[in-house]
């Protein structure tokens, strides 16, 4: 029985690779997209997918790329590394895409970076970790992999340099014990000496905790000059309510770049007033000074709102950046994978949703914290630029 199963599975896999794919359309450029549309990371994948679909429509409406249509092939990874791998192979081997954007998560991106190299296919990831583009073994950028989101490192540097400017050096940090919080916590601790930050309290809480009063009470016993909190999900709102209830609003509260959704301000029910966070351009588009950055982000905000009748999230912007970067490379190189890769690496002064991208052989992230983040402060029910 088991043997038959193996033969059957083997045949199935073999067929899926051998079968000649007849749906090849010569008048279109195919781009693959891997997003965690459902599953635990759907808050990333859902806006990313919607954004990518919208961007492809916009490009095609404007005449496509070099007269050819942009055909987007999207698979839902469900945030699962194995599925991501299977779909990535399918995109390259069966669908014959020119390049792939996504996946949404650092874990799923890392799962396929080696395969991208093996299959010689350009990959523009929408996930945060710098390890996606940086090969620790060779100490070089991975040849075929790029990414659009800001890294934790950049967010920490943005916060620390702002604190330094304000003369603050005694801080308390709080973080959630999920992957996001742990990664941010690592960077907060690592970069503290560089900016002269003295971490006098280091508190943690679980991603499903009901209340963080205890952690804040502990901090209150030895008050710092500022609190830096690293979490996503409901805890980043609950912690603000506790902060306010405990009467700690005289200690400035800094959130990570994961705070960038107006839903959070609403959920905090008034407790978010005065909270600071470093956010990408597209989230604070209305508050930006007149610039190309403002035009680009305002247009995205308007288009997205009109099409889906919901506000953009910071994550959709990463897909916007990834797909336009690929589209620009396609325009210059056509569907030549090596060519697309070279064009991506040559990209300079590309104004995206999250800053100005400048790639080079030594830099596949393309952003620096100075132009990828705006320090914002919550006023009323919106984010405004902090001075």
């Amino acid at each position, binding site marked *: 029985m088991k043997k038959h199963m193996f033969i059957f599975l083997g045949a199935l896999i073999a067929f899926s690779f051998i079968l000649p794919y007849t749906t090849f359309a010569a008048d279109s450029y195919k781009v693959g997209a891997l997003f965690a549309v459902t599953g*635990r990371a*759907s*808050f990333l994948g859902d806006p990313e997918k919607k954004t990518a679909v919208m961007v492809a429509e916009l490009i095609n409406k404007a005449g496509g790329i070099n007269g050819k249509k942009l055909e987007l092939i999207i698979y839902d990874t469900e945030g699962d590394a194995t599925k991501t791998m299977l779909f990535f192979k399918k995109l390259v081997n069966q669908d014959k895409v020119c390049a792939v954007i996504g996946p949404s998560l650092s874990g799923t991106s890392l799962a396929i970076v080696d395969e991208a190299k093996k299959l010689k296919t350009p990959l523009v990831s929408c996930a945060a970790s710098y390890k996606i583009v940086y090969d620790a073994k060779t100490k070089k950028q991975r040849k075929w992999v790029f990414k659009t989101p800001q890294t934790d490192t950049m967010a920490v540097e943005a916060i620390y340099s702002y604190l330094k400017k304000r003369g603050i050096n005694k801080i308390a940090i709080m973080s959630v*014990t999920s992957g996001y919080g742990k990664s941010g916590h690592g960077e907060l601790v690592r970069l503290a000496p560089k900016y002269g930050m003295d971490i006098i309290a280091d*508190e*943690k*809480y*679980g991603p*499903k*905790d*009901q*209340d963080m*009063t*205890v*952690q804040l*009470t*502990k901090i*209150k*016993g*030895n*008050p710092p000059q500022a609190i830096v909190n690293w979490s996503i*999900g*409901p805890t980043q*709102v*609950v912690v603000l*309510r506790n902060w306010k*209830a*405990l*009467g*700690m609003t*005289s*200690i400035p509260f800094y959130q990570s770049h994961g705070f960038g959704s107006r*839903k959070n301000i609403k*959920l905090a*029910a*008034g407790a978010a007033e005065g909270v600071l966070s470093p956010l990408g351009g597209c989230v604070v588009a209305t508050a930006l000074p007149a610039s190309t950055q403002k035009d680009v982000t305002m247009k995205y905000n308007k288009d997205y709102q009109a099409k889906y009748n919901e506000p953009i999230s910071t994550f959709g912007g990463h897909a916007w950046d990834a797909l336009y970067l690929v589209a620009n490379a396609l325009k210059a190189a056509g569907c030549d994978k090596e060519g697309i890769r070279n064009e991506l690496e040559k990209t300079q002064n590309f104004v995206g949703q999250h800053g100005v991208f400048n790639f080079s052989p030594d830099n596949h992230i393309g952003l620096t914290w100075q132009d990828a983040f705006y320090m914002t402060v919550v006023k009323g029910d919106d984010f405004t630029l902090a001075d």
Partner: protein
Amino acid sequence: MEKITFATQLLQYLITGLTIGSIYAMVALGFIIIYNVTEIINFAQGEFVVLGGLVMVVFHVSAGLPLVIAFPATVVLVMLVGILLDRLAIRPIRKPSVLTLIIATIAASILMKGVAMVIWGKDPFDLQAFSGRDPISFFGAIIQPQYLWVIGFLILITISLSIFFNSTIIGKAMRACADNPDAASLVGIDTKKMILLSFALSAAIGAIAGIIVTPISLMEYDRGVSLAIKGFGAAILGGLGSFPGAILGGLIMGTIESFGAGLISSAYKDAFALIVLLAVLFFKPSGLLGSVEISKMKRF
């Protein structure tokens, strides 16, 4: 902001710990009620809490019903879900063993979580605090008004349950089923109805817990598992099967977590409660208020 004293900090830890502990205690009570009548651990108990919070959001926030109407309506609706759980997942199982029934509740919890995700999506939801969010100062410590509601409801539930189980015929019949289902059915107690009632009652308590905790912690579709684990731990700590044990277990779990996080390290908050749980089970395997004789008679 003035610096607070160590004594005030301790008081704050105690208050917060008791509040969170009250929630654990309510989840633990839900476990115990079903366990006592059926000997199964209902792993969908956490989902009742989630449903309580989310259904309340629909009634109170979306539909705009006043609190006094939305609250009982939510409890009744979640009770119906509990009844359906018994009728659709528990009773139809042929040749039930305790283990198959427990697996059925796990399946039900996954299904309920999935349905909740489809209906409400993945974003957390908020409810207005019942009597505002202006904190009350108590010897320097801060009490959120909602904390008092949580503790108050635990007291209310405790009193109601003790009256129900000690002074009403139905309550006594349920206890009879718990002690000896065969003998209970011989004297004419409809054990099936009692099981149904136990699910309804557990669901109701879960719903109340969900409604009152949402203004503090928000509520989203996948919070059930973590609540169920904490509540289950509390039920074991107090002695599986004992009502006072469940309440005591919950309050102890919450308080230990709170003091552990405040005085030692917040990174190992969950570990402290588990260490105490293990230590108690090591010295008294039946739990704080459980009895070895009774636990020997149980199949699970």
